[in-house]
Every structure is written in C-alpha cells, then in structure tokens.
C-alpha cells in the first residue's frame, strides 16, 4: 500500500507579527514580540490586559469586488481567514476566480478541499448589547422582553457570522472550491488536526490539493475572560507586554492570547510536480492522541497524550529522534502544561533531547488558538526554506527540570526535519513532522 506523498506548496499567515507569512518570519527572526496592550476594547477591569493583535488591515484590499456584499457577514475570524487564504493560494501559484484576472483558472474546483480549524466564534458583544438593552424589565434582563422586543434588534443574518464553518464557506465561495470541506473545532489542536485531515484526504485520493490550517480571533472580552477564569492567562505582566509570555521559563505565569490565521496549500507530490509548483516542504509524519486528565484544561503531569502523539508521528515518518533538527513545542507559558510537555518530549527523545534546538513561538506570537499549530507549521516551512532557526525570547532562566535546548541564539544550518507539537485545553494532542523538499539537503 503506497499513499501519495503530500507536500506544501504555499503558505499564508496573518498574525500579531504582521499581515503576511514574510512578516511572521521577519518578526520571529528579529525576536520581535507581537504582544501588546489590548486596543480592541478597554481592558481596564481585566486581570490580563495584554493580547497579540493583528496590525490594522483593509479587508477591501484582500477580497474580490464580487465579495464586498458578503464581507458584511464576515466576523473577524472570517476576515483573517480570507486574507491568509488569499495569500496562500497566490503563494502556491494557483489562479482562482477570486483573484479577478483574465488568466486561466488553475485550481480545480471539485478536486480541491478546504479543511480548517476554527474556534468557538464569540459574538461581538457590542452588536448584541442593544438587543439586550431592549429586553429589560424593571432594569433586569427579561426573557419575555427578549422574545417580544430584543431579538428584533439583532440583524437577521446574525447567526451566519458566528457558525465556525462559515470560514470555510466564505473561502469556498471566493475561490470556487467545491471538494471535501470540514471545520475542526478542537481548540488549540485544531490547526494541526486540519492539516492532518487534509493530508489524509489527499492520500486517499479524494482531492489533489487542499487549503488547510486554522484561524481564530481571540481578542474578544468573553474569550479572554474565559481564559482568565480557567487560569490560563497571565495576570502579572501587564506592565511588560513583550516579556509576558514565557514558555518554559522559571518566571512564567501564564499564556497571552491573540489572533491570527495560518493557511497552507497541500498537494500530492505528483500533481505539484506536474504543474511545476514551488515545493516548500513535505508532510512525512503525524500523530494524534488524548490527554485524560481532570481538570480537563490541563495536561497530565507526564504528558502521556502528548507522548503518544509524538511517538506515532515519529513512527509514521520512519525517523529516529536524532534526525529531527528542530522542535516547535506548543509551549503556552502555563507552567503546569509546559512542565508536562517537557516531560513528554523527554520521555520520547531521551538523551537526544538536549541536542535538538527547541523554538517556542508563543512568546512572540501569543497564543492564537486554532491558528497556533498552523502558524507553527508555517514557521517550520520558513525554517526549512531559509535554513535558519530564530532565537527564542523570554526563556532566560529555564524552568527547573526543563530538558529542552531552547534556542538561545539564531542558528544557521541545513534542516532535514522539523517536528511541531500541539494540544488543546480539553485534551486533544497532535504532532506533525515536516521534511525538507526533494533536492534540498539530504
């Protein structure tokens, strides 16, 4: 049984470090933090007043004229996804109807899949507030008033802005993509899971190409309140945003949340070669499992679920640990989870672990939820392409018992394989291994 080999031929990223994948890379290589004080709303009453926010953009510049009407239905999650998808498809040198030119369409609608990780899209509270205000009786919210009066103040198509699958819907519409379509909602593991599923769809012959990855806009009061309530957000670093998120550091006090989208174009090697597409990296291994822990929002102390995902990925890739040249961990800055992830990596890599550079990215990117794993895979692609590993920031005093060789300075070296780890609060765990494309190194 031989499955087709699956390669990455395009990437698109919008993140706190900028509006493109190149901005992401430039930010990482320069050790820049995209974390700052929240400007999307006044966070004065919030324990954590920091977030990774995407710089200002004009949606109009990223969507075709024909989509301007549909843009009214694009929540911020959808906007970010649409922008990154546009970049990824162009990077892969695909021409679609959404690009509004006279060149022949080169993306086959029915042989292309869209598999995205998306979050629980939280509604725009300011949009809903007038409806709630119209539902008061004696100063209190009243459900009967809500039914009689309040709901009339909500725009009729309200729900369609917040269904997680609407990200895929808009992208399918803009670029005319009619093949397999799925939306994976496993919190921070979703980006990886979408890439894994897209890989499998190509391997089983149901598509020639897939647009996959993850998007989430977590800079929303209710999302950030939720992360504070479950003790994942730092509350002690409001004075020093760029030092706030400290994966694997002794002084870590929690994660900082943010927004972004990471999209990748996958293709069967065969089809990519036929159309002479740029081949950026190959997906050679992936693994999935679960942590079984209560409370659900934390990993088990030994990171068993992460261990299983790692070992399955390495087994599938047919590699020995010493063939991995870089590990991008999930590394959130939540001390308990970082300790567990360290335990899992230690169990799988043993003595080799101290020799493999480790690059946590959330110190610079923030925790972008369902986008996180996809942005890390895009980082891996860039590392392979540039043969350079950025230096980590904010891990100046490594946590006790942390065995990871956190990159303290930038490294230049040929990269054979990069392993990226991801997990969700809730327990889903993943690992993905990328390999340098044919003809490079090896």
């Amino acid at each position, binding site marked *: 049984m031989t499955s087709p080999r699956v390669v990455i031929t395009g990437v698109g990223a919008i993140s706190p470090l900028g509006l493109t994948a190149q901005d992401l890379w430039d930010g990482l290589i320069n050790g820049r933090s995209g974390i700052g004080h929240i400007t999307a709303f006044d966070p004065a009453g919030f324990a954590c007043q920091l977030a990774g926010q995407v710089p200002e953009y004009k949606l109009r510049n990223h969507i075709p004229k024909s989509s301007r009407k549909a843009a009214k239905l694009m929540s911020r999650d959808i906007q970010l996804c649409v922008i990154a998808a546009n970049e990824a498809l162009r990077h892969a040198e695909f021409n679609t109807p959404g690009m509004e030119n006279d060149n022949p369409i080169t993306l086959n609608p029915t042989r292309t899949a869209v598999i995205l990780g998306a979050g629980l899209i939280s509604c725009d509270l300011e949009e809903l507030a007038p409806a709630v205000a119209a539902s008061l009786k004696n100063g209190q919210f009243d459900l009967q008033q809500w039914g009689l009066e309040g709901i009339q103040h909500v725009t009729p198509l309200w729900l369609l802005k917040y269904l997680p699958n609407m990200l895929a819907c808009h992208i399918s519409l803009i670029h005319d993509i009619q093949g397999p379509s799925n939306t994976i909602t496993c919190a921070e593991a979703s980006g990886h899971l979408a890439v894994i599923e897209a890989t499998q769809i190509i391997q089983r012959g149901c598509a020639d190409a897939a647009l996959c990855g993850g998007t989430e806009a977590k800079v929303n009061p209710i999302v950030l309140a939720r992360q504070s309530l479950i003790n994942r957000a730092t509350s002690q670093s409001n004075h020093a945003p760029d030092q706030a998120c400290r994966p694997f550091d002794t002084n870590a006090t929690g994660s900082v949340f943010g927004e972004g989208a990471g999209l990748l174009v996958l293709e069967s090697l065969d089809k990519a070669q036929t159309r002479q597409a740029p081949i950026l990296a190959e997906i050679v291994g992936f693994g999935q499992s679960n942590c079984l822990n209560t409370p659900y929002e934390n990993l088990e102390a030994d990171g068993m679920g992460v261990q299983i995902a790692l070992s399955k990925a390495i087994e599938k890739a047919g590699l020995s640990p010493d063939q991995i040249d870089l590990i991008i961990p999930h590394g959130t800055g939540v001390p308990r989870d970082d300790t567990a992830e360290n335990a899992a990596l230690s169990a799988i890599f043993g003595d080799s672990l101290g020799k493999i550079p480790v690059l946590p990215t959330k110190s610079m990117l923030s925790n972008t939820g369902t986008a996180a794993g996809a942005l890390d895979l895009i980082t891996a692609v860039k590392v392979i392409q540039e043969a350079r590993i950025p230096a980590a920031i904010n891990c100046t005093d490594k946590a006790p018992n942390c065995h990871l060789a956190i990159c303290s300075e930038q490294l230049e070296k040929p990269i054979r394989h990069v392993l990226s780890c991801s997990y969700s609060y809730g*327990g889903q765990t993943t690992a993905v291994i990328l390999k340098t494309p044919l003809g490079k190194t090896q």
Partner: protein
Amino acid sequence: MSDTQKKRIVITGMGIVSPIGHDIETAWQAMLSGKSGVAPTTIFDASTMPTQFSAEVKNFDLSRFIQNTDKHAQGNRGSQFVVAATAQACKQAKIDTETTTPTDSIDRTRLGVYLGAGEGSVDNDVFFKALAQAWNPEERTMDWATWAKVAFGQMTPSHELEQEPNMPASHVAMLTGARGPTRSCLTACAASTQAVGEAMSILRSGDADVMIAGGAHSMIHPLGVMGFNRLTALSTRNESPETASRPFSGSRDGFVIGEGAAALILETLESAQKRGVTILGELVGYGSTADAFRVTDMHDEARGAIAALQAALQDAKIDKEDIDYINAHGTSTLENDSIETLAVKGVFGPDAGSTPVSSVKGTMGHLIGAAGAAELISCVMALRDNTIPPTMNLHDPDPILDLDYVPNAPRQADLNIIINESFGFGGQNNVVILKRFEA
C-alpha cells in the same frame, strides 16, 4: 490506496439520547409509530419567541448510564448526552468504560473519537446581566470595566470551559480511555455525518482499529433560538408543535430545533471478528463537498448535494440502482426539502420516484450537529427490521415534490443498502452509505 485494498469498516455498537427516547429501541419505536418529541420549550422561557416549542431531551439522568458521574457532571448538555450515548454503544460493542484497566483487548492508542459536536450554551443569566449593566444606551458604548466586574465575579470557570466545542469529545475520551486519533468537527447540520465519514476514513487508513463516532448538540437556548428565528429557519406553528415538523409537506414552514446525541462504534472488520462482537452493518461509502454558492442559500440546482451523493456512491463502488432507501436530511424547511428532492432526482434520474426517501425529523426534530449520526442509527435499525421509518405529518404533499416520501406509516421492504444524507448552512454536504453486512 487502490480500491481493492480498502479495509472493510463495520458498526458494532450504537447509543442515543434524543427527544424521542434515551435508548435505541425506544427512539426507533417512536420513529415507527410517529410518537412526537416536540412540545412547548421548557429549557428557557420561550413564551414570547416567534417559535415557542422545540424537541427537548426530557428527564435525562446521566447516572442511569454510568457509574461515576463526577468527571462529566459539569459537562454541557451535549457532553452529558454523548457520554450517555457512548456508554450505551460501548456496552453493545463490548468495550469497557470507566476503567483504567480495560479487558476488551482493544489497544487504547488505536481507539479514537470523532464527533460532530456543537458548542455549549453561554451562561445565560450572567451573560445577559453583564451586557445589560455594561451597555450605555445614550452613548451606545460598552463600559468594559462594568462588564468585567460582572463576568469575573459571576461566571464559573467550568461552565466557560465546557462551552468549547471540543469538550464533548474530551468527555468521550475520558469515559472510554481512548488514546487514538481524536477530532471534533462542526459543519453545522452536516457535522455528525461528516464525523462518521471521517472516522471511517481514519479506520481505513490504518491509524486506528476502533472509532467512537457520533454527534452531540443542544442549541435550545435564548441565543440559539433567536439566531434561527431571525433567519426565519424555524417553524412557528405554535398552535400545533407536534405536527410542526412536516418534511416535504406543502405547508412546511421551517425546522423544529431539537437536541441530543448519538454514538456509533465503528471498527475494522478484522477487529470486530477478532473480538467476536455482533456486526450491525457495514459502512461502505462517504462523500463530502461544498456548495461554494452563497452564504445564505443552498445551491439552486443542488450541485454540491449531487456531487456528495456521487462521491459516496463512487467510494462505495455501488450503482445507484442498488440503493434501497434514502434517509433524507428532510428538515421541513422550504428550501432544504426542495433542493434535496432536486438532488435525489439529479442522481437517480427518471427512476428517482422508485427509491423510497424519508425523514425521521417529523418525530425527532432536528438535532443540528447530532442529526446525521442519530439518523444513521435509524438506518441501521431499518436494516435490522427491514422497515423504512415514515415521514410523519405529511398529509398535504407539496405538488412540486414528487418522490416517494413514505408518508405517515412505516413500510416493510427488503433493505440492503441505505444512503444517509446531511446538509448544513454554508453549503456543507455529507453523505454516507450503509450496507447489510455479509461476511
């Protein structure tokens, strides 16, 4: 992978928590007899909403299904329902639950979970209170400090966590000790059919031996009903809730929102035979497509639905002539039932009228993300009993809908191959094909 090498995937266990029963047999008998699960809404005061009724899961008691509810009692409604459904399915498939030392010979790293599951409800009282207090109607601005004071003071951490749509899958993993591939998807009303199809694909790929596949959802809450009401997607037949869900009828006026969960144990044939468990049916085909048409509407010529049907038939290597019955999405909305009829005609051509098509939503309501898996269970039961469940409340046929919808009474038929269809907002189309198992 060449077709000849596709692993065979079978169903070995099922469980359901639905508005018409908290076990398979009760729900199935209700589908056959037409006993409705629809009634005035009690979960919240919906007495002034455009739609004042729904298909609720009533009298649910998790402790009837599992020994120790501690790890699941904080779960949202969908999570608790799917834990109960999974417990039933595992019992039937002889899979141990609630133990760290299972003796069922299934390697837990090869036992996975794939759900089509929805988000949990917001913490309504606090959610609305915080908004009401923080909104300044004169300046039309939010006072976020006030909002934060209410939110941080009154929201409960577990309730916030349990809103995340991955949590039902987390609870299923916790119940069963599953350490294999685990995903959860949310493609609107097509989600759990997609979950079944993708779980089948994971088994075929060799990454797992057993998958727990299914769905869980409850949107019967003030924001969910408001959202669907504003879209005018729900029936407003408040004077007659029990007959409001009337798929394919000329007087249909929208779907009836329901809630529930369904779980199926999917397994490689090899694993099922090795374990010596009873095989209930075989999954032979799966197709998934996107309409890529409009945000608000299904494709007007059913392009995506037709493509999904064709993809599933091709995957199954089955001729359309061999299909004995189609379990329709049949939501009772004007649009879905018309477009779905077009899709069946588009695939089956002039003979479409000779293939029975029915929707069980007339009795069960629409379980949203959980609908597809719950309806696949009805397909397995149809195979078992050689009986097609009827489309209830179909007394005034829509003159332009001219398929055989099996109205109002169950029908005996020799059933071997059944199609299950699910479609979702945003143009999601998923189809799976079920076949009577033959060794």
